[in-house]
C-alpha cells in the first residue's frame, strides 16, 4: 500500500462519514455530538448504549442510521416478559400442509440476526434476557440449541435506556455494560433545535433517508480504523488514565479514591484507544493525538466505573471523576511538561 492509497482511503473515509452525517441530519435535528459518538462506535466496531429521556430521538436516530447504511435493521422492545428466545430465535417444529408434524425442526431467527439492532429500553427486560445479548455483542455469534450461528457483519447494537421511570427496571449488570464501547448521553435539545424539531415533525411525514453507505463501506471504514497509528506516548497516556482510575492506585487523585469503588479495566483501555482511532479517522488523521484520548474518555469510561457508597452519597458522578482524571494525569513525561511550562 502506498502513501497515496492510504491517503485516498482516508479521504474516502472522510467523505463517507460526511455523507452519513448529512443523511442523518435530514431526519435528526441537532444532536451532533450524539451522532458523532454513534459514528465513532460504528467505525470502531463497538456498540452504543444511549441514555436519555423519552422523546429525544434515540430510536429515530437508530432507525435513521440503519436506513442510511442499507443494513438489516431489527428492533427489540425490551419488556419484563421478554424471553431470551424472543431475542435470539428458536427452533420450531415444521408442519406439513395438512397441519401434521413433519418431525423436522426449523430455526426461527430472532431479531438479533439483524445488522443494526435497536435494543429499546434494554433495562426493562430481566437480566436473563439482557444476557442473551452478551454472546452476540462480544462474539458476533448466537448459539441456539447447541448450534452456533455467526451473525452478519457489520453487527451493531444500539441500546437505549431511560434514566427516569426506574421502577420495575433491571439495571444492566457490569459485565454487560462493559460490552458497550460507548455510553452516550442524549441531551435535551436547545431552543433552536427544538424549534427545528417542532417544525419538521408537525408537518408531513419525513421520508427516511436513502442509504448512503453499504455494508462493504462500513467494513472498509472499520478496517481503516484499525490501521490508524498510535504513538507509544499516547498509549502510555491511555494506560496512565486507566491506572489512575483505580481507587487503590498510587496515582489516583483524591476524587477517585473517595468517589469510586472500582475503576475502568483493560477493556476500558482498549475501548479508549479504539474510539480515539475512530475519532482520528473521522477527522482525517492517520495518528491518534492526546486530545483524542481526552475527547473520547467520557463516553468510553463513564459506564465502566462503579461509584463507592461515599461517592454516591456525595453525589459524585463518573463524569466528574473522568474530567478530574483528564485534568490531573499528565499527558507527557515530567521533563517535557517542565520544558513546556517554561516556554509558555
Amino acid at each position: 500500500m502506498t502513501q497515496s492509497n492510504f491517503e485516498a482511503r482516508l479521504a474516502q473515509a472522510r467523505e463517507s462519514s460526511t455523507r452519513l452525517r448529512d443523511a442523518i441530519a435530514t431526519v435528526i435535528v441537532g444532536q451532533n455530538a450524539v451522532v458523532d459518538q454513534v459514528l465513532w462506535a460504528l467505525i470502531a466496531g463497538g456498540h452504543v448504549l444511549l441514555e436519555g429521556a423519552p422523546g429525544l430521538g434515540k430510536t429515530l436516530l437508530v432507525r435513521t442510521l440503519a436506513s442510511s447504511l442499507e443494513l438489516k435493521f431489527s428492533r427489540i422492545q425490551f419488556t419484563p416478559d421478554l424471553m431470551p428466545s424472543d431475542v435470539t430465535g428458536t427452533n420450531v417444529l415444521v408442519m406439513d400442509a395438512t397441519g401434521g408434524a413433519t418431525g423436522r425442526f426449523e430455526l426461527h431467527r430472532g431479531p438479533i440476526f439483524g445488522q443494526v439492532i435497536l435494543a429499546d429500553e434494554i433495562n426493562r427486560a430481566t437480566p436473563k434476557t439482557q444476557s442473551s445479548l452478551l454472546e452476540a455483542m462480544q462474539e458476533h455469534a448466537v448459539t441456539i440449541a447447541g448450534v452456533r450461528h455467526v451473525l452478519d457483519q457489520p453487527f451493531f447494537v444500539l441500546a437505549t435506556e431511560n434514566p427516569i421511570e426506574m421502577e420495575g427496571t433491571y439495571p444492566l449488570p457490569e459485565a454487560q455494560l462493559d460490552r458497550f464501547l460507548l455510553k452516550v448521553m442524549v441531551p435535551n435539545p436547545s431552543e433552536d433545535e427544538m424549534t427545528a424539531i417542532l417544525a419538521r415533525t408537525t408537518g408531513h411525514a419525513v421520508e427516511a433517508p436513502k442509504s448512503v453507505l453499504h455494508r462493504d463501506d462500513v467494513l472498509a471504514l472499520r478496517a481503516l480504523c484499525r490501521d490508524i497509528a498510535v504513538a507509544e506516548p499516547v498509549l502510555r497516556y491511555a494506560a496512565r488514565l486507566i491506572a489512575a482510575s483505580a481507587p487503590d492506585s498510587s496515582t489516583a487523585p483524591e476524587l477517585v479514591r473517595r468517589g469510586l469503588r472500582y475503576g475502568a479495566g483493560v477493556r476500558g483501555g482498549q475501548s479508549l484507544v479504539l474510539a480515539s482511532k475512530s475519532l482520528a479517522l473521522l477527522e482525517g488523521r492517520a495518528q491518534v493525538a492526546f486530545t483524542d484520548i481526552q475527547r473520547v474518555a467520557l463516553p468510553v469510561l463513564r459506564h465502566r466505573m462503579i461509584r463507592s457508597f461515599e461517592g454516591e452519597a456525595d453525589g459524585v458522578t463518573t463524569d466528574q471523576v473522568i474530567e478530574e482524571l483528564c485534568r490531573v494525569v499528565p499527558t507527557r513525561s515530567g521533563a517535557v511538561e517542565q520544558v513546556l511550562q517554561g516556554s509558555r
Partner: protein
Amino acid sequence: MPPESTELGRFHRLFQRWARQIRLRLAARSLLTGLALGFALAGVAAAALWWQRLGSLRPAAAALGAVGVLIALIVATRRRLSDSDVALYLDARLESKEAISTALELGSSEDAGAVVLGDAVSALDQGDPKRARPRVLQTLHALAPVGVAAVVYLSLIPLPPGPAVPPAAPGSSRVQLANLQGLEKIERLENLDARDAEQRERLKQIAEEAKRLREELAKGMEKREAQAKIAKLRDDVAAERLKLGDQKNRAGLEAAVGKLAENKSTRDAAKALGDGDLVEFDKKMQELANKAEKADRDAAKQALDEAQKAAREKGAKELAQALEEQKKLFEKREAKAEALRELARGMKGKLSEEALKDLEEFGQSGSPEAQKRLAESLEKALQGMTEEERKRLAERLQKQLEQQPGGANPMTKEQIDDMAKRLGTPEGQKALEEQLKDLAKPDASKEGEREKGLGDAERGGAEAERGLGGMAPVPIEGGGPSDGSPKGPGDKGGKGDPGSKADGSGGPGSKKDFGTGDHKGNTAKLDTKGLRSKANGKMNAGAPMQGSTMGRAPSRPGETANQAGTGALGQAGPSELGGVEGSEVPEEYREQVGRYFQP
C-alpha cells in the same frame, strides 16, 4: 540515517535541526538558572558573612555563582531531552496532533506511517522556530544580576557593629595589682608577739595567705575571688582578737570593769576595758603608772589587783591573765617613771624652763608623750653639763639615795647607783644618755601590742577591700565608737559632745551651741599623721552608687548583736549586754526575747 532524498530522510534532517536548537536553548536556560540560583545563594551567603562580620570572606561568596553553573551543567547533561521527548515537545508547540512523535516511532514502515510522516514533515517545515523554541530567559534569571549586585554591595559596605557585650557578673572582672595597699599590715602578723605557739602558727598562716594573695593579685585574678580572700583574711584576723565580751569572759569582764570603776583614777581605764579596747586600756594604765603621786599609783594597782581577782573568780581566765600581765607591767612602768623623776630632781638646777614644765606635766598626767619629752630634755641638759657638774650630779644622786632608803624600787636604786659611779667617765655619760633614751620609750603590754597589731591588720584588710573597689567600713583606730575619751596629748577627756569646750559650755556646732557665738569656726588641729579625707575628693571611687550596701562586718555562725564584735556593725558594748532584762519588753515575752538574743 536514511537518504536525504526520501521523506523519512527529510523528516530526520528537519527533526534533528529542531532538536539541536531546542537542546541548546534548554542547556543555555539551565546554565542561566544555575547561574542565577548560584548568585542568589552567593548574595545570601555574602549577607550571612556580613552579618557574622567575616568581612574578608564576602567576595568569596561569588564563587557560589560558578558552583551554580557547574551544577547546572551536570544537571543539563543528565537531563538532556531524548528524541521522543523533543518530538512530544514539538508536537505540543507546533500543534501537530502527535504527528511528529508518531512519525519518529513508526518511520514509513506502516501504512499510516507514510501519511503521518508527511504530516510531521509539513509541521516541522512550516513551524515557526521563534514561536516554538523554548525560551532561554526566564523571570528567575533576574536573580543573577541581583545576586551579583548584592555580593558587590555587601562586600563594600562596612561590617555591622558587633553585638553588645553583656555586662559581666558583679565582681567577675579580673583585677591585676602589683601592690595592694593594706595587705602589708596583715603580712606583718607573722612578727607579732603571739599569745601562744598555736596562735603564732595561725598568725603565720594568715600572713602567708596575705603574701600569696599579693602574688596572685600581681599575676591577675578575678576581683570577686580576691574580695572573698580578703574577707576571709579579715575574718581570720578578727577571730584572733581577744574576745573579752564573749560568753566565757563576759561575767569576768563585767566584774573587772566594776572593780576598776569603783576607783576614780581607774574609771577611764574601766571604760576602755569595758569597750574591749585593750590598747586604750593599756594607755590609761601607762598614764596611771607615770603619775607622780604614789597614792594614785597605789590606788590604781589596788584596783587592778582586785579587778584581776574578780575576773579570775568569774572564770574569765584570759582576761585575768591579761590583767595579771598589766599588773606586772604597771610596776615596771612605775619604776621607770620614778627613775626618770629622780634623775630630773638630781639635775634640777640645770633643767630648762621647758623641761621643768614637762616634768610637771609628766607628774600630773603621766602621758607617754610627756615622758618622752622629759627624757629628751634630760638628755639635752646632760650634754650641756661640765665634768665638774656631772660629778656633783653623781654625788647628789648618791646623797638622795642615802636619804631615801627603800623609798624607791631596788632596781631603780641600783641603776642610779651604778649610773652615779660611772657618771664621772665619758663612757658613763654615754651610758646614761642611752638609758635616758630607753626611759623615753613607754612600755606597752603584750596584749595591747597584740591587739594593736591585729587591729592594724584588720584595718589593712579593710583598706585592701577598698583598694579593690569594695566599700568596706574601715574600723576606727582604737576600736569601738567614739566615746569622748582623750585620744592624745592635750585632750582633756571626759564625756560630752564632740567639740564641747573644756568648761562644758560647748563649742560651735555642739549640742550646747545656742547660736550665740561668732560662728567663725574654730576646729582644733587634728593630731594625725596624715589626712584621712580631703575636700572635692572622690568618694568611694570604683564603689557602687549609694543605694546599695557593700559594707560587711566580720561575723561567725551563731554570733548575734548582743555579742561584742570587732567590726563596725554588730558591736554591742558591755552595758548593752543583757539589755533585754532592763528593757520595756513585757514580762511574759521577756524570756522568749532573751532566749532569741542569747549567743
